[in-house]
């Protein structure tokens, strides 16, 4: 039952069900608030483009929001990021995110146009909305996928996500319901390059839900004060430490190297749980997903839950005293040795060599 995990693999062979023949197209919900599009939506369009190409079907963005010019502009941007068409619903009741009108509007759109795949970002908004829409439509929803592909046999969405507790992944499919729904966390997929010359067709959907019928009211929105908060998701350079550092004091080695490089500091979950660094710095499945140009992992074993949060990094350097640590399976460069000796030497080597490069240029 519920606590038995991971679920047992099952092999069910299915041909494309004729009931689903008219469910066509890949959709991405474009999350936008106060005129800002959440980057995860563009990342999903990039991924959706590949899925749509494999299926030879159109890729569509779904934009919902307040009736202002900016909302319509967002549709143009979905074309730049790869959409062929864009569904647009504008209404005053869609100004701030609220579960009820958003669920209603997205459910209506799905029922009207019947896409085969619907993807949302696994943000607080996306998870709130995806869970509600999937239940209303009585279809399957795979959470926090790290890989999306089309199963050639069944044309189904094969959505891969980590299984808990171990170094394993599982592939989940929704074979007998449509649409197939999935959420993906920010930064898991690469950001596509926008092409401003692309354009597409906007399909407007009327949405007439009177404010008086909506029970939940937004009284206020208090934006976060981001000053001084780490922003790992968009950091270019990250130095991260794990349990291999043994003690809180030794974590200073990570800070020293990060400071020299002008890098953000990241950490594995045990380090956060031990209180060595603040939770905002956790990298991995239940922390942040990052895609820096350089990720230096110090005393981190490379468990799959950590890996899914950082394997999109351009270059990964790992320092670990165990030559068999899984992190060496996917890092680019490795040093096998004691972090307590190597990190300090590395910091000094960076200091010397970067000074030389700077002088030379």
């Amino acid at each position, binding site marked *: *039952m*519920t*606590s038995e*995990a*991971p679920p047992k*693999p099952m092999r069910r062979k299915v041909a494309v069900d004729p009931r689903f023949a008219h469910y066509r197209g890949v959709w991405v919900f474009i*999350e936008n*608030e106060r005129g*800002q599009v959440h980057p995860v939506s563009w990342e999903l369009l990039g991924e959706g483009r590949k899925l749509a190409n494999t299926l030879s079907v159109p890729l569509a963005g779904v934009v919902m929001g307040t009736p202002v010019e900016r909302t319509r502009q967002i549709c143009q941007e979905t074309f730049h990021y790869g959409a062929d068409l864009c569904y647009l619903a504008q209404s005053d009741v869609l100004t701030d995110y*609220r*579960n009820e009108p958003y*669920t209603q509007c997205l459910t209506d759109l799905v029922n009207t146009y019947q896409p085969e795949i619907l993807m949302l970002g696994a943000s*607080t908004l996306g*998870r*709130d909305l995806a*869970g*509600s829409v*999937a*239940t209303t439509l009585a279809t*399957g*929803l795979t*959470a926090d996928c790290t890989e999306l592909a089309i199963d050639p046999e069944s044309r189904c969405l094969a959505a891969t996500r980590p299984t*808990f*507790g*171990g170094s*394993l*992944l*599982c*592939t*989940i*499919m*929704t074979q007998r319901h449509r649409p197939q729904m999935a959420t993906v966390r920010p930064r898991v997929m690469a950001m596509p390059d926008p092409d401003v010359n692309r354009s597409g067709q906007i399909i407007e959907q009327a949405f007439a839900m009177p404010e008086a019928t909506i*029970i*939940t009211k937004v*009284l206020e929105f208090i*934006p976060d004060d981001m000053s001084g908060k780490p922003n790992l998701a968009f950091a270019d350079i990250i130095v991260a430490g794990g349990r291999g550092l043994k003690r809180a004091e030794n974590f200073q080695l990570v800070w020293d190297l990060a400071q*020299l*490089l*002008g890098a953000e500091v990241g950490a594995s979950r045990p380090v956060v749980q031990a209180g060595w660094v603040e*939770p905002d710095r956790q990298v991995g*499945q239940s922390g942040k997903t990052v895609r820096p140009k*350089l990720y230096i992992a110090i005393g981190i074993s490379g468990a799959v839950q950590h890996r899914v949060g950082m394997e999109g990094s351009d270059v990964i350097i790992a320092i670990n005293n165990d*030559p068999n640590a899984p*992190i*060496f*399976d*996917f890092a680019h*460069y*490795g*040093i096998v*040795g004691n972090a307590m000796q190597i990190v300090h*030497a*590395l910091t*000094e*080597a*960076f*200091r010397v*060599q970067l000074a030389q*490069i*700077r002088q030379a240029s």
Partner: protein
Amino acid sequence: MHSIVCIKQVPDSAQIRVHPVTNTIMRQGVPAIINPYDLFALEEALRLKDQLGGTVTVISMGPPQAEVALRQCLSYGADDAILISDRAFAGADTLATSFALAAALNKIRQNMPIDVIFTGKQTIDGDTAQVGPGVAKRLGYQLLTYVSKIVNLDVTQREIMVERRAEGGVQKLKTRLPCLITMLEGTNEMRFGEMADMFRAARYNVKVWDRLAAGIDDLEKVGLKGSPTVVGKVFAPKPRSQHAEIIEVHDHDPRNLAETLLAKLFTQHPKIAQELAKRAQL
């Protein structure tokens, strides 16, 4: 005031080990715990009871052993506990889980109307955060996810005001009861149970409902049959096309190792070298 708290029993992830050769999870002997996120939900419900009086009912869908988790909730001060357990529930995904839970909650509210349902933010095993929204939709309750604070709750006016974590800020929302709240972690701290509650919990007869007691007669909606998501294969992540290039030097001297690594890095990735040189705080 009647609050429900949904809890799930999960394996203690901190104690899970993976078999180094077969890469499978070694489950034997891993203790089961209350999903840690659910304790924030329970504590919040107990606080409401402290303030307003009333009843806190805990409910879980799971195998018979999940009774232990419910008993633990009673020892913290919950009043009643219901386990819904039936072979037919096995293999449930979130859609089937929310169906079974909602059916049982419908039964409960026939006897005692529900004001607020609490769930955790997510579990540490399935980790989907989908069950809360699912239950709310099925019952037609207002859904308030990622709630960090209950600002005000007025049972007679049937009104509640909360702060919820949204993208990039905090939303202050007002809505009507009944509602379903998924509680954000770190928002409160679980109390120590009182002696009297611990004794009561030890003797308490946790109600166990099978599918019929939970009001479910449609077998197509529960367990594996009622689950649209199908787990196809479980596998170990592929290593990158090649194993990391391990830097080695004859004398094993850390300084030498570091310099060799950087020489490699900077020649093979000149862009990274430039970027670092630009930003370094030398």
